[in-house]
């Protein structure tokens, strides 16, 4: 039973295309995140949702749009893909109400834009 699952695991696409990455968690958590890990392995928060409401939207191009249809899902749609979007994208979840609860991460989606 995968706690946080992302699809697809690998995504190769051409510049200018639109793509989506899906994320689902079966942990009953109320908070979900998208992180971007660059080639130097640095993790940067992109978005966070709590109970389907956007609470954090870091400096991310508006080509990136998160969608949370329910508390268990947080999808990431990317328009007009650019070479610089190539990275590994991680979805994560946690239960904010539980003080100090750790985040659980998906296995990542390696996006390659050619």
């Amino acid at each position, binding site marked *: 039973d995968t706690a946080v699952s992302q699809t697809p695991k690998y995504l190769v696409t051409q510049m200018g295309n639109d793509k989506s990455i899906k994320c689902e968690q079966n942990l009953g958590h109320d908070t979900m995140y998208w992180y971007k890990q660059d080639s130097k392995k640095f993790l940067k928060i992109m978005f966070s949702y709590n109970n389907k409401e956007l609470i954090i939207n870091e400096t991310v191009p508006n080509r990136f749009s998160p969608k949370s249809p329910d508390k268990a899902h947080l999808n990431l749609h990317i328009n007009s893909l650019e070479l610089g979007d190539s990275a590994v994208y991680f979805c994560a979840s946690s239960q904010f109400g539980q003080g100090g609860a750790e*985040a659980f*991460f*998906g296995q990542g989606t390696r996006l390659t834009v050619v």
Partner: protein
Amino acid sequence: AQSVAQPEDQVNVAEGNPLTVKCTYSVSGNPYLFWYVQYPNRGLQFLLKYITGDNLVKGSYGFEAEFNKSQTSFHLKKPSALVSDSALYFCAVRDIRSYIPTFGRGTSLIVHP
């Protein structure tokens, strides 16, 4: 504001020797502190955390970390390193009033046979 620093990009240690991976943090309030490990082509896995109480926290795979409030540090330690411990280690901090943990840049641990 919250931030975390991992001053070493890489730590090398011989198998069987003790290891330390350093982490210092900055928060305006009280911190929650975390360590995660990332193996190649995998997501981050939780190792241990400090919320409150005992400054020495024990976690998975024999790892432990010591919270030092005066030095604002949360160093990860293991008494005897294994080759299989070789991985990328991330320290993270979250102010108790914040939704978002901030991650350090990661430290690559290499354990030599």
